[in-house]
């Protein structure tokens, strides 16, 4: 059974002041196998984030349904951890308390939360920052904390909505390696939304290209590169070939998206 199955899910936003409704996502089907790492690639505004938000339960599909572990998604839940593009750490909580937020909501006792947080801080390289408040952290550190916070509930599925989109290039490369290490260690099922082609190829086992609005899956490209992956892989001819194929597909869509926004 697929870990996530998206069955005919579409989303239409009602028109403003009686205007025509806007279709963000054409009804689409997608099955994500257990422990798979799937990247959804598309030009901005293609509805890829909307699709992810529907899987998270933060947005409602206008048609179709999402099944996670065989159960229909109706609301957000701790079984699907999410990392957002914007910095969403709770500013009033320290790094350790942020990571412990999910377990706390589930009633995990203090000592156990501490143990979970300490382990995750070590895994994502935050040791020594336990008592820092988010405003004292760099963007990269904040996203590390956000990743650790999502992992603290030990969710079966990790939903990542351009989590490194606001980071500088170098930090971003480090975060990609970190996330790969986490996946290689824990083998979560991952749905990763990005508009960065290199990032998608480096991280994922399958890359889905979405069309410009309304979003639909245009192309699927398998990434048969072996794990564990090292950053040097980005310079290999195999990597470049996949990147080129995706660049071709996405370029068309970006041009279409640009033409629509005129």
């Amino acid at each position, binding site marked *: 059974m697929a870990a996530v199955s998206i069955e005919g899910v579409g989303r239409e936003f009602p028109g403003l002041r009686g205007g025509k409704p806007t279709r963000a996502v054409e009804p689409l089907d997608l099955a994500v196998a257990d422990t798979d790492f799937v990247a959804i690639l598309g030009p901005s505004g293609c509805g890829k984030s909307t699709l992810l938000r529907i899987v998270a339960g933060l947005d409602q599909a206008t048609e179709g349904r999402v099944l996670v572990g065989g159960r229909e998604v109706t609301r957000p839940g*701790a079984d699907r951890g999410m990392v957002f593009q914007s910095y*969403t750490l709770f500013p*009033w909580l320290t790094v350790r308390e942020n990571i412990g937020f*999910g377990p706390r*909501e589930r009633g995990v006792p203090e000592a156990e939360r501490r143990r979970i947080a300490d382990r995750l801080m070590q895994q994502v390289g935050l040791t020594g920052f336990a008592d820092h408040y988010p405003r004292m952290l760099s963007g990269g550190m904040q996203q590390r904390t956000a990743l650790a916070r999502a992992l603290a509930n030990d969710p079966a599925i990790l939903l990542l909505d351009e989590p490194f989109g606001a980071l500088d290039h170098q930090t971003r490369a480090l975060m990609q390696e970190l996330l790969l290490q986490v996946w290689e260690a824990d083998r979560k099922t991952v749905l990763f939304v990005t508009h960065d082609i290199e990032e998608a190829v480096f991280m994922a086992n399958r890359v889905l290209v979405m069309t410009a609005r309304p979003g639909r899956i245009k192309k699927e490209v398998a990434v048969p590169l072996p794990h564990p992956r090292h950053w040097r892989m980005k310079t290999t001819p195999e990597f470049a070939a996949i990147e080129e194929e995706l660049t071709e597909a996405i370029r068309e869509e970006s041009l279409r998206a640009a033409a629509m926004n005129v």
Partner: protein
Amino acid sequence: MSRAPVPGHRQGRSPFEPLVAITPRARVALGVAFFVCFFALWGGVTWGGLVKPLFLADPARTFAAGWRLFAEFGFIGDVAITVSRVVGGFVIAAAVAVPLGIAMGAFKPVEAFFEPFVSFARYLPASAFIPLLILWLGVDEAQKLAVIFIGAFFQIVLMIAVMIGETRRDLVEAAYTLGAGSRGIVLRVMLPYAAPQIAETLRLVLGWAWTYVIVAELIGADSGIGHMIMDSQRFLDTGQMIFGIFLIGAIGLVTDLGFRAANRLLFPWQLGR
């Protein structure tokens, strides 16, 4: 996240460029300097004979009057009773208004039910209720507390509802994906998010509560700072009247400093914002 660089205190930049920081010492010195100017002006017009003592007592006479009030007329009792009225009325109003405001900010049906009436009631001037409240409750403590309650309650409710409602949506969504339920969202996301602003609102409204209590005491009371001011008018003692007003300002200033110190202790996570 906005973290705009605040221009620092550097040589070569004039402090009169926008947002250029000044040293804490300069800040205190400038604040004190205004009080000095204020007293100089006051002394100038009174001792210089520009204003008759009948209308405005000079600083020395004012403080002498203040000394007499405490030494001979047991004024400390009046101060204590006024402070207890303000604090009492304010605490009762806040105790009811804060939870209601939170409920309104978080739950849209609650907001839809209360908001129109509260918006209407907010414009009812508390002082206009005083004659009515004297009829209903007499001139005792209950009437004073009621005036403050009416003046503070609706303002607090509305401002807190807005603050809670403005909780960053992405934080609420993050909490949902971490498994939080409604209770968790309200108590452990919305409330801490809005807490510093709620404290700021309470500080502001406490200032207004002072106005209401004095008005109530001017109109009908047999004790309190307002009652003293009214009494002094009968004897044309402007020194005492001014001292009374001055004292209210001084108490306000001290409470303000207390609130600020408390905020620094309670909300260490937002230092430097």
